[in-house]
């Protein structure tokens, strides 16, 4: 639905955390493009009709001279075809407003000191600029610090992960009814895979326990420890044991895994950690902001 039809204030804002940068966006905006790179990259969000927001980042040596940078950027955008370009400020953040291909676009720059990152927040406004929404989004922008135990938070595509800081996001698969993240350490010894599967009633014809057993395939020696518990209104199945031997050394990696179906959205959530002694107790959460 377009904002004009429903009034944007009726839409709940949702928190997204990607690359340790957090932002709150209307609940019907979805992330359609993302980058895994920490040095530089972008995420683009769209409502059902088109792109509404873009966040790009680039690691820099220190805080930039915003005034000079905006002037240079304005000149470059004018060269690229931006019309009526001029400086604006919203929520105390300096930016640029202009028209490109008939659409109003506003752009703002922020420096994330903790991450040494220059962040650009871009809003295309196909139905005209909504300054109030823009302010709300800009004010919500934040660097997300590490938890007290050093873990970092990633929150997108309905998943909320708490990941040891030594692991980096190596892969992200976002398909209809399936999202998977894989975090690995530098030597690819420790792996944490988080997944969220939809349309569960259409394909799952077994218990969560048997699905998890098939998915994880723990070795029988020593026998894996299974546990079934109620947590936050969810029936969680947990297994801890050794993975099947792999490689020519026939190593059996330590593994932990959990799976449950969220009562809120009906999706199957699961995580599998291999060789991870420092895994937090709940590396993946589903509903609620926590």
């Amino acid at each position: 639905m377009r904002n004009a039809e429903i009034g944007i204030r009726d839409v709940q804002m949702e928190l997204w955390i990607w690359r340790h940068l957090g932002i709150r966006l209307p609940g019907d905006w979805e992330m359609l493009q993302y980058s895994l790179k920490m040095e530089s990259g972008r995420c683009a969000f769209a409502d059902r009709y088109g792109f509404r927001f873009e966040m790009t980042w680039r690691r820099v040596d220190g805080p930039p001279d915003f005034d000079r940078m905006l002037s240079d950027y304005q000149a470059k955008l004018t060269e690229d075809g931006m019309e009526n370009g001029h400086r604006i400020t919203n929520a105390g953040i300096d930016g640029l407003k202009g028209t490109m291909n008939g659409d109003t676009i506003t752009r703002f720059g922020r420096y994330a000191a903790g991450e040494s990152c220059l962040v650009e927040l871009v809003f295309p406004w196909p139905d005209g600029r909504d300054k109030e929404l823009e302010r709300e989004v800009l004010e919500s922008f934040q660097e997300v610090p590490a938890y007290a135990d050093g873990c970092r938070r990633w929150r997108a595509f309905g998943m909320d992960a708490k990941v040891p800081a030594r692991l980096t996001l190596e892969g992200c698969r976002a398909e209809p009814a399936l999202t998977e993240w894989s975090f690995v350490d530098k030597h690819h010894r420790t792996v944490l895979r988080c997944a969220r599967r939809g349309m569960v009633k259409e394909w799952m014809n077994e218990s969560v326990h048997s699905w998890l057993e098939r998915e994880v395939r723990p070795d029988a020696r020593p026998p894996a420890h299974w546990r079934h518990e109620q947590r936050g209104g969810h029936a969680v199945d947990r297994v801890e044991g050794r993975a099947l031997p792999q490689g020519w050394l026939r190593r059996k990696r330590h593994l932990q895994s959990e799976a449950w179906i969220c009562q809120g959205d009906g999706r199957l959530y699961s995580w599998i950690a291999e060789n991870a002694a420092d895994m937090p107790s709940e590396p993946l959460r589903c509903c609620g902001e926590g």
Partner: protein
Amino acid sequence: MRNAQCQAKGPWMEMLRAHAMQNRAARVERDPGGTLSVWVEQTRRIRPPLSWIVRFRGERATRLDRIGSRVWSLCDGQRTVEDVVTAIATQYRLTFHESRVAVTGYIKTLIQRGVLAIEVAEETV
């Protein structure tokens, strides 16, 4: 800052505004379990001498599973692809774009197989 390539209008909009409709010439068989078989006449013919050796089938069947049958039944020529996407998203508890990617991909396959046809809305200025 780099020059962002963000375009306001999604490239998927043309498809969403289109109307998908069933091939009226197709023969439909309802299979047990809510699935469908849609038989479409083949336009390509094989010529002798190949036709003396290979038996030619005048029709080709496309078998639709339960979700495919639901998509097919929603493509009635009245609903836009956006309506179909929304209906599937609601029924299967998917987000709009999850449903859009799955439904539009599926509709494209069915169009290629001659099961569905698409009417693209003209752009109004």
